[in-house]
């Protein structure tokens, strides 16, 4: 096959797997077109084409698909079911290709491998190799391309992890200089939640740059090792069975245990996982009164002004609390 274009929507699990996907597809000789970052127009497109009950991130995904569909020969939309024993993705990932095909037509053909490691231990690899076959007949090229992409992907995720002891270096619970009234200290605040909320600055209304501007040192679940997350999750009486939420809850428990200054849980209004997971984190946070905890709930109507106010109030609260504590110890 000659030069053809494969579209990858910059939404949902793109934020977890983009490196792997893009490297692999490009390695096969395809031209990969990633949709541009989310904008108002894009979101509006999504809102118009999806049913209203669906969660914001899926609407955003629809928007990205709409923006790509006339520019590419194929769309890459894997059906992500299960990538680890005992945990799934949420039902919307299980039915994502079908939802798209049902509500958006005409669409270019979808490349929709089903990733489900319950079927066999090598399913993950096989699904990719299968995709490769539909693109090129050179099986060596397919294999090498997958191995290379996977290697890069692993290297990248490992590079982001906090080394054991890193958190201490961040001087958690930095004492506050009484006279400074909280000026010039940097707060350690963790942002937790689905990566497609955290990493899409349009959806989270520039929360990260706001916090950075306020001098906040931002921590995320990406920085916590998988082993540590699994360890933290043992605290739950019943194991969680959602891959994405496991990461969120495990990281939240870790940051609570490390008594960092604050945690913000980013969630979306119609998300099935967040409604229960939010409750767990909220309850666990009661056990660590020194850690400030709040939840920011996003939907397509959330306004930037509201988030600004809430962010300021949250940071203020942490600083006031720290001043109070330093005055009383």
């Amino acid at each position, binding site marked *: 096959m000659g030069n053809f274009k494969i579209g990858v929507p910059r939404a949902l699990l793109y934020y977890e797997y983009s490196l792997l996907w893009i490297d692999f597809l490009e390695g096969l000789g395809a031209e990969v077109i990633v949709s541009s970052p989310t904008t108002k127009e894009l979101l509006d497109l999504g809102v118009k084409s999806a*049913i209203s009950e669906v969660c914001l991130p899926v609407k955003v995904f629809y928007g990205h698909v709409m923006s790509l569909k006339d520019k590419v020969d194929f769309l890459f939309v894997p059906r992500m079911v299960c990538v680890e024993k005992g945990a799934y993705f949420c039902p919307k990932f*299980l039915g994502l290709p*079908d939802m798209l095909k049902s509500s958006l037509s005409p669409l270019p053909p979808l490349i929709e491998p089903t990733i489900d490691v319950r079927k066999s231990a090598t399913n993950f690899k096989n699904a990719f190799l299968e995709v490769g076959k539909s693109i090129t007949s050179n099986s060596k090229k397919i294999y090498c391309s997958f191995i290379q992409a996977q290697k890069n992907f692993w290297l990248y995720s490992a590079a982001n992890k906090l080394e054991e002891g890193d958190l201490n270096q961040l001087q958690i619970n930095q004492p506050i200089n009484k006279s400074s009234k909280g000026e010039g200290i940097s707060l350690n605040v963790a942002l937790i939640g689905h990566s497609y909320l955290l990493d899409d600055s349009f959806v989270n209304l520039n929360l990260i740059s706001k916090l950075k501007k306020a001098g906040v040192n931002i921590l995320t679940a990406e920085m916590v090792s998988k082993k540590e997350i699994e360890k933290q999750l043992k605290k739950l009486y019943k194991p969680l069975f959602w891959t994405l939420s496991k990461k969120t809850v495990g990281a939240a428990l870790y940051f609570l245990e490390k008594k960092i200054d604050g945690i913000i849980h980013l969630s979306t209004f119609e*998300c099935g996982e*967040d*409604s229960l997971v939010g409750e767990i984190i909220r309850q666990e946070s009661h056990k660590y009164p020194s850690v400030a905890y709040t939840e920011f709930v996003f939907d397509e109507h959330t306004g930037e002004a509201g988030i600004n106010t809430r962010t300021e109030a949250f940071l203020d609260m942490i600083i006031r609390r720290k001043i109070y504590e330093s005055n009383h110890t």
Partner: protein
Amino acid sequence: MKVTIPNLGNITLIAAKSLFVNLGHEVIMPPPNSKRTLDLGVRYAPEYCCLPLKIVLGNFIEGLEKGADTLLMVGGWGPCRFGYYAETQKRILKSLGYKFEMISLEVPRGNLLHQLHYVHRLMNKNSFSTLIKSFRLAWAQVVAIEDLEQEALRTRPREKIKGETTKILQAGFSLMERAQSVEEVEKIKQKTLKNLERIKDQGKEDLIKIKLVGEFYVALEPFVNHNIEEKLGYLGVEVERGVSVQPWVTSALNLNFLKGGQKKEGPVEKAARPYLPHSVGGEGQPTVGNVVLASERGLDGAIQVIPFTCMPEIVAETVVKKVSEDLDFPVLTLIYDEQTGEEGLVTRLEAFVDLLKSKKLNRCLT
């Protein structure tokens, strides 16, 4: 041990109750679902979680108020959030200061000891044969209840005196509650069927027929769905249920091996395949399959009932829109939350039934 079981129509009121009573437990059923149940659930449950969790939480609170000390639930392992209900409810109730044990039955996974402990508690030192006997009785009740309810759905639009179907059904169920053997259950069922047959106006053959599909709990709990089946019956519609407790119990207990190994693709999944080839948890795929089948079998339309924010059914709703277009088969999706009012519902049902009627008339004329 004083056990309470969440309300789910006549199924828990009769069958589940009889199972645990026969195992020698004191069963304290929560009061029938009411506005108060809902209010309690809404007050203490996470705001955005689905309606079933809220109402069941309300059931537990009202059961605890009546003196229960053991809460019985079923669990699961996703991908829909039902599997984490019991755990969340336990946390909430503990934080409210209630003292109780939560028994959440599920296929063990890494928590085998908990599950063995639960089963041991529920067995209550009974012999295995008592357990089997109690279970068989309860199962016979489940089957009888569902058969009778389905028959009532055929009878109601044909009854000569309004309300008679419901009366006969209730009389049958109050006998059923006291039944002590499988034979007795069967006898009551046959008698009730005969009584239902007697009140039917045989002249009414060609009624509007609607398939009722959607999320398990909302479809089966009349308080929650505002008695949708009865309402449709009084509008002269014959309802066919697409949701049943039976497959759900067998798969929840993982008794599938009784039916020959691994879960096979049934006719419903097969019908869903062109539109939704993969399971999405809950009733998502069956909803789609049932709509396709209903259209093939010449029913007039389908109604999908779903709780607000329900994950599998939102996927199904999206897909069903396409099915409905492709097959020119009307489907009404009703979304329930704590604000859903009875009046709005009636208006929508009436409008939908009118649409089906005029469609049917057109078909007859051409």
